[in-house]
């Protein structure tokens, strides 16, 4: 990478070369390589965020559905409060708080983890609600009552009997959410509150390139943008396919 190669257009246009097939950005970094690294980071952040949201949401949903009563009410009210915050706002809030708390150099290291936490905290509610609804239905089914009559420990009933039977729709939602998580990360990075510019993700790439769109160096933004769109589309299709695969009526 050298500054001499800065702002090269893509290979098939004038001034470009095949060393940098998709062009370079203002600092001479290869757009193609950046996209490859960036996609990896975006997927990493997105997947972990969804996983964390799953963990939080499923646990709280099971608790709320199984225990009922006060536990249920408390958890559901917390969920309602969370829902009144849009994801972006929440992420901004968390990010701002963490930035204030930590010294500058520590920030960029843990930035990705803060981002993961922020996204997870935005997404857990839908898992909790779905799991809670399914739990309320399954709880009265006779195989659960049979386990209670036998005298099985409630934790074993919830983990061994309930969980496998409520987890189905969740997995489908999770895959679709992965796309949303990546998009959210991209948005946040674009807005400047996600990953720092030193760590390329699709979002930061788009952000970087945004400044140069109107000066004619369109490739810095557009290619990451296209890749982002394709990534989201594929994940959504995966989610659709999973949903159909689990649907017993279509078997």
């Amino acid at each position, binding site marked *: 990478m050298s500054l001499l190669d800065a702002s090269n257009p893509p290979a098939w246009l004038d001034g470009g070369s095949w060393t940098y097939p998709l062009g370079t950005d203002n600092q001479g970094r290869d757009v193609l390589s950046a996209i490859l690294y960036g996609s990896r980071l975006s997927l990493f952040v997105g997947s972990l965020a969804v996983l964390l949201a799953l963990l939080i949401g499923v646990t709280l949903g099971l608790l709320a559905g199984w225990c009922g009563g006060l536990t249920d009410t408390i958890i559901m009210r917390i969920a309602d409060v969370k829902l009144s915050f849009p994801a972006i706002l929440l992420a901004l809030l968390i990010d701002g708080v963490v930035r204030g708390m930590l010294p500058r150099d520590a920030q960029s290291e843990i930035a990705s983890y803060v981002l993961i936490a922020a996204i997870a905290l935005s997404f857990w509610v839908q898992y909790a609600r779905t799991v809670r609804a399914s739990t309320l239905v399954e709880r009265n089914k006779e*195989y659960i009552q049979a386990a209670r*009559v036998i*005298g099985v420990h409630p934790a074993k009933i919830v983990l061994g*009997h309930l969980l496998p039977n409520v987890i189905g729709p969740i997995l489908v939602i999770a895959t679709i959410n992965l796309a949303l998580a990546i998009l959210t990360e991209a948005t946040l990075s674009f807005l400047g509150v996600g990953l720092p510019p030193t760590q390329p993700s699709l979002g930061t790439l788009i952000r970087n390139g945004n400044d140069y769109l109107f000066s004619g160096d369109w490739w810095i933004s557009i290619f990451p943008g296209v890749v982002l769109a394709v990534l989201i589309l594929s994940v959504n299709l995966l989610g659709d396919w999973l949903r159909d695969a689990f649907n017993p009526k279509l078997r």
Partner: protein
Amino acid sequence: MAEPETLLHVEELHRSFDVSLPAIERLMRGKKRATLKAVDGISFTMRRGETFALVGESGCGKSTVARLVVGLYRPTSGRVVFAGQELARLKSRKAAAPLRRRLQMIFQDPYASLNPRWQVKRIIAEPLRTHRLVASEAALRQRVAELLLQVRLSPVDGDKFPHEFSGGQRQRISIARALASNPEFLVCDEPTSALDVSVQAQILNLMKDLQRQLGLTYLFISHNLAVIYQMSDRVGVMYLGRLVEIASAERLFAAPRHPYTQLLLDTIPSIEITGREREPVGGEVPNPINPPPGCSFHPRCPFAYERCRRERPELIDVGGTLVACHAVEEDRLPQARAYTEYET
């Protein structure tokens, strides 16, 4: 021969459910709290080795009684005493475990009573594991195979999943699971109502055989009087949460005392009586949230009068049968005609 011991004693059992609207809606509509009295003062006793049937139509509370006996619900008031101990009083799971081992349940729906994601052998092994009844994995497999054979399935069926079996076979698996902990007492909640007639015959025969082989005691819940005729020694008839008649099966079918029992026996569509012209008694079971005052059967009773609207009848002994009816007490009923010849 010594009198068989009392295994189950149910005393003044009550269970109510709060069916009010959520608090905010209640305030908005100005409605009061609504309580559903599912079980409204039930008392009966069961001896070891007998089959006692609870019969009634929908909303009479028999399923609730089953769940109270087995400990799935706590009584609102009253006692359920099994083998001298009250399950509801035992606070911890550990303390209740020995009792639970001896008292098991078979459910109505063969499709919902088995976890669809578990293999059959795991389902049957669950009581064995929970109560630590076997020492090793090998012994566990052995016991599961024994149980499967006992309900006339094959040991290889253990590796399959519930959806691979028919309704009757699933009910057998339920029975195997119930028998795993070597119980003395089985509560059977409409065990054959969801099965075809010929399959029902197989399951009822199996249950009778098992009772003889293992010395079991059955609390048998059903709405089907013909099945009860075949299976039970004593019968309790329930209506809107109360017992209106308790008698030996012999006496109940030959000479039912309570007008509701007579109504039930009269209205069963019966094979013997083809093309019979009869005028069925009108009316339906009232809403259990707002039961009629006094005797809850009085709106449909051809013998009801003033006292029935005011005063709730208690069970009294009439020639060996316990009946809760003012008309019977005052001897106002016409001579009970012989309904059936009950033969053993």
